[in-house]
């Protein structure tokens, strides 16, 4: 059973490599949302990647080397807030496996127990209340597979959107189905990945939404890249970015 | 490489595999709800009817009359039964006043080798007792034997099963334990939950594939 701490004074923020390079606005939005709740946000500059790409490709040694860096960077007893279900899953569920039988094993248990996905943290730790200041809009949600299955945060994420009174959340058909990103899968099996993202884009289009919101930069990159290639005028936005935009005015 | 050598080599590899260290988690079996006698009849009937079984709840005293009535209504011409089986006497008694409109009773008294063509081609319905039933999944339990052979509930296009209401268990697990099946299994223990079916063509359900097309259950109370 997950144990959620009471409202903390300080948290770490793990930016994730994709958010760092491609969606820094979303990162800043997430940090500001936390700061707005009166929390001191610490962003260790030595952080880099959670290691998942190498780990999933069959290179655990290289993944461990990079993971050790994250263990050192986030070493104090603060919750670690991660704006990605996929990276959170890696840090929380796969690090213990990656370091099984390694000297860092106990440190990793403690590290992983402090990991929270962003929406999970907002809903279950901060019990955040959001006031919608934006104009009416119809959006749809796409959650990452690991956010859904490893972190179990789908309902948390959607509940945040549902708090916004002028936002109509239309659910996508086959919401549970993978968008085809899968990290290096998109590159190693491009034909299958393309078929998957094209189906996902079609399902998004059918909702009539003008925006698709996601908690994962990998999925976002994948889906928006495909939508833009097809000339579809639906924008993709990270959950943190969207929430900040709607509640900050 | 013969079977014996293969056996030795396989078992040797398995013994050296370290599989004995496989962690076996503790896990309690979920128990189905325990229903009372009346609920079990209702549930069994509902489950079986949902799978296209025709269910009649009848009086134990005159069930064979119901059976005779069905035989007339359905126009069967040859009905197979086990002459030394548990339902034989009542059936023979019910047939004793044959007004000429009843189907012939055919006894499964010879081995199938002497009887196969007849069994496959001329029998309209086979009637058997059953050992019991399980209510949670809605299935009959049969232990065919020398008196009521296996093919009776398979080859004819209709199978009529005679079940005593007090032989309905909550679940297969309960029945297996209560009757100590582990002490000795029959040649062929069998569960039947309805007429044969397939959904292999675009999930469209069709009944009467290779087993019976109709299953009629008479629950004797």
């Amino acid at each position, binding site marked *: 059973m997950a144990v959620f701490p009471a409202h903390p004074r300080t948290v770490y923020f793990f930016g994730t490599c994709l958010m*760092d390079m491609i969606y820094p606005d979303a990162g800043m939005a997430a940090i500001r949302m936390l700061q707005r709740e009166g929390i001191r946000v610490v962003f260790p500059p030595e952080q880099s990647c959670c290691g998942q790409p190498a780990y999933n490709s069959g290179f655990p040694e290289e993944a461990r080397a990079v993971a050790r860096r994250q263990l050192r960077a986030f070493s104090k007893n603060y919750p670690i807030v991660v704006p990605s279900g996929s990276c959170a899953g890696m840090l929380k569920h796969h690090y213990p496996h990656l370091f099984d039988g390694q000297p860092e094993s106990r440190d990793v248990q403690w590290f992983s127990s402090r990991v929270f996905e962003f929406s999970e943290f907002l809903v279950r730790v901060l019990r955040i209340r959001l006031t919608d200041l934006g104009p009416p809009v119809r959006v749809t949600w796409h959650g990452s597979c690991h956010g859904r299955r490893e972190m179990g945060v789908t309902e948390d994420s959607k509940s945040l959107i549902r708090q916004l009174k002028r936002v109509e959340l239309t659910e996508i058909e086959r919401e549970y189905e993978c968008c085809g990103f899968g990290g290096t899968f*998109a590159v190693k099996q491009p034909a299958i990945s393309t078929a998957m993202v094209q189906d996902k884009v079609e399902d998004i289009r059918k909702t009539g939404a003008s925006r698709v919101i996601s908690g994962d930069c990998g999925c976002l990159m994948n889906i928006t*890249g495909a939508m833009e290639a097809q000339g579809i005028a639906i924008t993709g936005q990270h959950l943190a970015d969207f929430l900040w935009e709607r509640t900050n005015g | 490489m013969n079977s014996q050598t293969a056996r030795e080599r396989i078992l040797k590899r398995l013994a050296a595999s370290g599989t004995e260290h496989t962690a076996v988690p503790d*896990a309690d079996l979920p128990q189905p709800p325990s229903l009372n006698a009346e609920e079990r009849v209702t549930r069994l009937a509902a489950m079986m009817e949902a799978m296209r079984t025709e269910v009649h709840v009848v009086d134990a005293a005159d069930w064979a009359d119901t059976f005779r009535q069905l035989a007339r209504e359905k126009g069967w011409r040859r009905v197979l039964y086990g002459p030394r089986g548990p339902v034989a006497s009542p059936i023979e008694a019910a047939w004793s006043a044959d007004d000429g409109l009843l189907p012939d009773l055919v006894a499964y008294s010879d081995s199938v080798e002497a009887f196969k063509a007849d069994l496959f081609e001329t029998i309209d319905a086979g009637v058997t007792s059953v050992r019991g039933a399980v209510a949670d999944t809605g299935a009959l339990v049969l232990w065919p034997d020398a008196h009521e052979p296996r093919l009776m509930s398979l080859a004819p296009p209709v199978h009529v099963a005679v079940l005593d209401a007090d032989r309905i268990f909550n679940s297969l697990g309960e029945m*297996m334990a209560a009757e100590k099946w582990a002490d000795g299994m029959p040649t062929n223990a069998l569960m039947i939950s309805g007429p044969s079916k397939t959904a*292999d063509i675009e999930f469209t359900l069709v009944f009467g594939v290779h087993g019976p097309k109709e299953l009629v259950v008479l629950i004797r109370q």
Partner: protein
Amino acid sequence: MAEPIVHDFHAEVEKALANRQLRANFRFAMGNMIEKRKALFSDPVELEALRAAGQAIRQRALSRLPELLDQLEANCTRNGIQVHWAETSEEANQEVLAILKSHGATRTVKGKSMVSEEMHLNAFLARHGIEAMETDFGEFIIQLTCETPSHIIVPAIHKNRDQIARVFQQKIPGTPYTEKVEELNAVARKTLRTKFFQGEVGLSGVNMAVAETGTLCLVENEGNGRMCTTVPPVHIAVMGIEKVVEKLADVPPILRLLTGSATGQLITTYFNMITSPRREGEKDGPREVHLIILDNGRSRILADPELRQTLLCIRCGTCLNHCPVYVRIGGHAYGHVYPGPIGKILAPQMEGLDKAGVLATASSLCGACGEVCPVRIPIPDLIRRLRNEIVAADDSGAVAGAGGKRDLAETLVWKGWELANLSPALNRLGTRLASAMGQRLPRVGPIKQWTRARRPPVVARRSLHERVRREGGKDE
């Protein structure tokens, strides 16, 4: 002897993806099976308890496998079932042939058995002039079209109604074209009834073998399984070594998980438990029952504690039903007897990573399979483990053919990635470079693959690291 056909996975994938009818057929079928299973397992708490129980039963069986197989054989033998052992498919085929020859039999009727597909039994028997008539409706259809099964449970799922109608009309003499399922069913029933009647030997698989009592358990809906195991005077059952369970009490939970996961049914029409041939005084049933126990690489899989979990599988096929890759490429593209997620971990282990390792790359690790597996096989973890083995530095790994696909280019990529992520300076440099190129990232390698269907990602002018530094998140 013809050269073995090398299966070109990528080519087959492209072909399948371009086949709109195939994709429509699979989308319809898999969606249907997903919904059925969800409707049946409607109570998540109960489902999790059942899965835990199923996993425990299967783990217990594996933990005592040699002993249980020994016990199974002893009990079967005591009851008159003749037990044979085979290390390879070839040996198993020879055992079947020997039994057939001892009876001078040339006409067999067959219930669905994936192990027999593994053995390529039908082709083997055909080479020896023996007819192996498939009697499961789906298997019957694909036997007419000379195809292999595209799914573990519903072998002809890739075909829709009019395709089946056409097959019947073309391949079964005297059959007019009809799409009415009752009529198609009537044709199959009539054709196969003669075969059951005339069959000299019945062949079947085994869903579960109970060591405690020496009992072979079989599930089915059509009645063909009972026909094959009751009518002919000889019955031969084939099973993989892992299909044994310890006791009768283990049967109901596994049965519930199997029927619920495979077809969304609470129970199949028939559940058959066979313990002996025809006994004294009985009037029907086979006079001889044989059980062939096949290894075919399973004992090697058992030797690795992590990969051993592959053998928990009860062959329900639900991982296929939930897989976003399988639904798009269908079963034949995999080029292996077992497709889908279970196929991705089984095929490389049975055939070697060098031959089938590519299947382990055909997964986004979405986890849908592991989420629904009735016995909780951690399929994504095992796929990842096989990926480790594929790129391992040498062939000392647990799996045959390990280290076979070590790609120097990829190794360098990950070494480079590691360095970039360990050195903040390198990291900053890399990010600055990428952002400077912005839209003009070179379309080579991964970027090239990506941009086939997507606009390339735009690297931000200032990374989050930089923004934080400038705008103030805190450091300590």
